[in-house]
């Protein structure tokens, strides 16, 4: 039951956001669609969040969103600067970054936010959660990546562990 709510509630919110219509008829349709889809779902092993930990989860989630948003902005601007530089200052390579996370979801979210951060993009992930990351500037990324990853990992572990 709680699994069903976990899937159908976000679906319901997305449906309302996309239709932008709060009339009762639309609420009923949205609820039916959300519950229907949650019944069709494959068996997924979602991590549940206990109710008493919800405030902590939300606080960590909001901070995480701000960290990622900052990464998106810096990533866009710094990559644009490299593109427009007449000398095209590239020093590309693939470096290994341990995600430090045990769960698959944690590793996936780490890989997602690394791919959004400046000059880095995950190419492959192995079984132990090591992320092989392509960098535009290897030396610079290697200097900052450990710090950035421990910040992300800290927030992710507050959310899911």
């Amino acid at each position, binding site marked *: 039951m709680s699994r069903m709510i976990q899937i159908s509630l976000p679906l319901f919110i*997305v449906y*309302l*956001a*996309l239709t*932008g219509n709060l009339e009762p008829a639309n609420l009923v349709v949205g609820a039916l669609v959300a519950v229907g889809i949650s019944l069709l779902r494959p068996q997924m092993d979602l991590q549940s969040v206990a109710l008493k930990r919800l405030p902590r989860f939300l606080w960590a989630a909001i901070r995480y969103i701000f960290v990622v948003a900052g990464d*998106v*902005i810096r*990533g*866009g*601007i710094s*990559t*644009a600067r*490299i*593109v*427009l530089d007449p000398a*095209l200052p*590239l*020093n*590309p*390579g*693939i*470096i*290994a970054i341990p995600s430090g996370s045990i769960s698959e979801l944690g590793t996936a979210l780490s*890989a*997602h936010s690394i*791919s*959004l951060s*400046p*000059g880095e*993009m*995950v*190419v*492959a992930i*192995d079984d132990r959660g090591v992320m*092989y990351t*392509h960098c*535009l500037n*290897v*030396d610079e990324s290697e200097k900052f990546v450990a710090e950035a990853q421990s910040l992300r990992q800290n927030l992710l572990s507050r959310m899911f562990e």
Partner: protein
Amino acid sequence: METVLQIAALALMVIGTLFSFIGVIGFIRMPDAYTRLHATGKVSVFGIVFLLLAAILLTPLSLWKGLVLILFVLLGSPSVAHSIASAAYRIGLPMSNPARDDLKGKMEQGDGKD
């Protein structure tokens, strides 16, 4: 109020178009598949987010619909960049002047001719 909104939307549109344009320039200037993905996957996405923000202000697109679209773009683009890069490495596309390659020998690779 109307004018202020229109000016803000115009500014967002100019920024968005500029970043999309820089993304295309990057795609042309970068030397190999991996670095090109940085240009399209980050700079262009930045441009799309700004264009969507302008669309929220200027067109009948509602705020929530726009924010959900931005969320989907931000969720989708790194996944797409990752899967293209992964596929490129798997078929053995070479990097131009790699400084180092920690992944070498750890993944089954083709000869780059597929």
